[in-house]
């Protein structure tokens, strides 16, 4: 089977079966991520806004958010985090989860993987370079990781019928397109 035939068959397989909780939970994590990342971004650019957090000892938000590691390739990490959650949001809406297009599924999983790799780097920086932890940053790290978990498990649960469809008889009898489970 060539690529165009495979793509046609995936589209013809129709929208995927998606557990009702999957888009809701993933969207919730992304929205919370946008909220916290927005707060961090505002605090980064507006000196009059200070983070509600300890600023001495091991938990020291000021030390982390003003460190050299608060920039990546010249860009504020807080803004990058905000861009990440805003960018991945469209891939988490119900229509995107139901989409059998491999481009959508691949983009979602790659974006979440990139997010997780980046937060691992940030955690390393906190532990070994900055020697301090920022609670708000940790909240973003946790949301990124949880989103990664939900996306991976969601992908496992919603493999399209088109993956290994041989003919339309592989669809349950009477069903030519899948519907959202209630």
């Amino acid at each position: 089977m060539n690529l165009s035939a495979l793509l046609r068959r995936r589209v013809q397989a129709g929208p995927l079966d998606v557990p009702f909780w999957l888009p809701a939970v993933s969207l919730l994590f992304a929205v919370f991520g946008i909220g916290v990342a927005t707060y961090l971004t505002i605090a980064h650019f507006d000196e009059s806004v200070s983070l509600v957090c300890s600023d001495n000892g091991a938990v020291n938000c000021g030390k982390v958010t003003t460190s050299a590691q608060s920039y990546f390739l010249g860009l504020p990490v807080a803004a990058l985090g905000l861009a990440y959650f805003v960018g991945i949001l469209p891939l988490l809406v119900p229509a995107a989860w139901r989409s059998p297009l491999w481009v959508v599924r691949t983009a979602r999983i790659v974006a979440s993987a990139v997010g997780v790799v980046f937060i691992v780097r940030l955690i390393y920086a906190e532990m070994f370079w900055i020697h301090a932890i920022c609670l708000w940053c940790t909240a973003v790290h946790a949301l990124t990781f949880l989103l990664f978990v939900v996306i991976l498990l969601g992908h496992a649960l919603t493999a399209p019928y088109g993956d290994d469809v041989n003919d339309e008889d592989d669809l349950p009898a009477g069903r030519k397109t899948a519907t959202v489970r209630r």
Partner: protein
Amino acid sequence: MARDGQQRKNEVRERARIRREQERKRARQRKILTYSGVIAAVVAVIAVIVIVGVVNKSSDKNVRATASDQIVNAIKNVQPANLDAVGVGSIQAGFQPVSNQPALVSGGKPEVLYIGAEFCPFCAGERWSLAIALSRFGTLTGLETTRSATDDGNIATLTFLNAKYTSDYLTFTPVEAEDRQRKDLQKLTDDQQKLVSALLPKGLSFPFIDFGNKYMLNGGQFDPTSSLSGMSAEQIATAMSNPSTDAGKAIMGSANVMTAAICKLTNNQPANVCSSTAVTAAQSALASAGNTSSSSS
């Protein structure tokens, strides 16, 4: 008959469909297992980073410890006779006069500004001397001991990270810019940054000590790797007040020159310190530095 054939065909296709559905379920379970493995791997990596980071921090904390009473007393009680016996000791040239700068003052008193780093071996040597010199004009508290970086002499020393100083004559402002692992520790204020840029356009060396904008020391006065290597903080505290040891000659010699510089800020007060043989000799060394070094402005 045709209907029987059709029915058999439908049954075969239905059985094949069920078989494929079961295969898909197994494939789905394998996927869940694989993705769970990936998630577990990520959790493990993060856990290792956090655990090693916490252990490292504990190790670093263990190196930085409150200075023992023996060390604190040794610093406070260096005998003037021993300081006089050493004079300028084995120190190399280091002091430079500062000109065209307003007096460095804080809280209404002349200020001694120290900028160093815990990893730095030359800072490791000079902190002993500076602590002795300052103790002749006031009281240092909050002293802790540490070591310079493992790959930079591992020299036992003090750290001024949490030190406090009280004196009727001067103010002491320490900045430990980096820790033993060369990570950022304390930041310079904007004023301190401007001062350093004005005095040292090419950049500062650790340690940098500004004595009221009258004299500055940019770097160490002696090489501690030859006189302090392999010694514990307690051993250095004992040796540094013995004029016949290498540690004593280096540390007390440096302390005497620093004392002479401080005396210039305090109008030679207290008199018993600033008129001692050692300080008088050191003031000649300062004057020589003024003749041979160029202005820093």
